[in-house]
């Protein structure tokens, strides 16, 4: 149970960072923390106590195994997050070129 609570705390830390940080790079890093904590949650869901990796081989007895599906989901999700982070970093670089700052309180030409 304690691991789930810690995982939830990690999600909240990521969300807190996204909502309160003023630096573009810190926002991107917070999104990273948020993503990884969700991946951790998926892996925790898949885990069964005292069970093995789910690969059948000769001479290995079929005992309880961890659930392989969330692990596959996490792999897919990591790739997606890589793409999103790349786009975000590229945008941050272009924003720095235009505004000469990473501070979001100074990047505000859009309003109303």
């Amino acid at each position, binding site marked *: 149970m304690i691991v789930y609570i810690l995982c939830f705390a990690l*999600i909240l830390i*990521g*969300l807190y960072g*996204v909502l309160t940080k003023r630096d*573009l790079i810190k*926002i991107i890093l917070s*999104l990273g923390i*948020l*993503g990884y904590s*969700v991946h951790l*949650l*998926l892996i925790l*869901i898949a885990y069964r106590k005292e069970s093995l990796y789910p690969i059948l081989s000769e001479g290995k007895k079929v005992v309880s195994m961890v659930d392989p*599906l*969330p692990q596959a*989901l996490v792999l*897919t*999700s990591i790739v*997606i997050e890589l*793409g*999103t982070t790349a*786009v*975000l970093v590229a*945008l*941050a670089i*272009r*924003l720095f070129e*235009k*505004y000469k700052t990473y501070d979001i309180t100074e*990047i*505000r*030409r*859009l309003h*109303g």
Partner: protein
Amino acid sequence: MIIPYFIIIPLLAAFIISLIAGDKDEWAVILSTIATSFLLILSVFSFATMQNETIVYEMSAWKLPYGIVLVQDALTSFMLIMVSLISLTSILFSVSYIRNISEDWKYYSLFMLLVAGMNGVIITGDLFNMFVFVEISLLAAYSLVAFGNRAEEFEASFKYAVMGSVSSTLVLIGIAVTYSVTSTLTFAQISIEFQNVDHDMKMWIGGLFLAGFGLKAAAIPFHAWLPDAHSSAPAPISSMLSGVLIKILGVYALIRLFFNVFNAPDFFLTLFLLLGSVSMIFGVFLAIGQWDMKRLLAYHSISQMGYILLGLGLGTPLGILGGVFHLFNHALFKSLLFYNAGAVETVAGTRDLRKLGSLFKLIPITSQTSMAASLSISGIPPFNGFFSKLIIIIAAVQAGQPVFAFIAVIGSILTLASFMKVQRYGFRGEKNVEIKGEIDWRMNLAMITLAVLCLASSLMIVPGIKEVTLDPVVSVIVGKVSSIQSILGR
């Protein structure tokens, strides 16, 4: 089996464009036009040939309930027609609009990825698969919003990307929780297992999905990114985002999950009603004070999404009919209005309503079509917007919710007021405007097509036509879990 082609065609087009285009942008235009018109033909054909059936395609022949399935029913085909129609006209409009911004082929390649992602979201029958397609279309959308290389566009795109990532994370947590309590990801199987889930868990799952997809649908507490992103993007992309993207990633996903998978729990229908009415009123109040034409239109998107959510939240067949009909109509007239804004920007070089005027003499076709679209969105009788709003208001009264009906009427009147402002200052003012650019025939063709469709689609409510167009769609939604579980029996 034509279902997988709805993903294959745009995806293939995206890659072929980036491979062969190089310097020759003409090829990119031709290929994407062929791909989108082919998609339109396929979707109309599939809607016409299958009325109430459901077709299932098992990917890599993995049987249900283990593999990933693609599902096609009336709701799916209806949405596919909407996406293909708007994307075809957007491509037509883009040809000369995009020419001077950057390298064309990148634009068309990303555009086809956007279409592929949306089509994927529509036809998938698997929760995680839906998430993947949502991400594909969002990645394309972030890049397309920033396509014009101006500082404001990067700013809007960054905001959009951060909000999009947060909402995707919420959806992913929802998927994780759903999987942990149901041990499956196929919609049909989840809908069976979900009945045994205890009440608190249902609330958690529903809340996570409502927050995640509500952010993408821009219902009012989650709306902050929309006006920036939709007004900064190039005009054809604004019309894709406002016209179809927020509906597919937001409302369609909500319909699929909450009606077909979660069996329309009353608590969440009430939330739909509240979110809808709040968006309706606040969206239109925020819109009325805007002077930037595209920003005004973007705020109206929030308000009109409120009508759709209100219709769905009523939960009665008539309310759902109104919601679905308004969904389609809004795609038509909001895209048309964004094309008009793009045409005005091309001709006058600005979209500030205070600097515009007397455009009526300069660009008669744009003015006439924008008149048609303004009348549609504010609900004036012969146009489609009137009928869908009327149905929603009648449904609200019949369902014993006269307060919501009253809010809908107020919202409609304020919409009329703000579009009178657009017409008065933008097209019929006294100021003379210098001409800075020209509108070519493709732009005019796109605008005229949608203006005609704004009138023609009001025929969809006529008895006789309604039975073959809207009723199959409504029956899928009203059927709730039974319509998605029907694929399990074979």
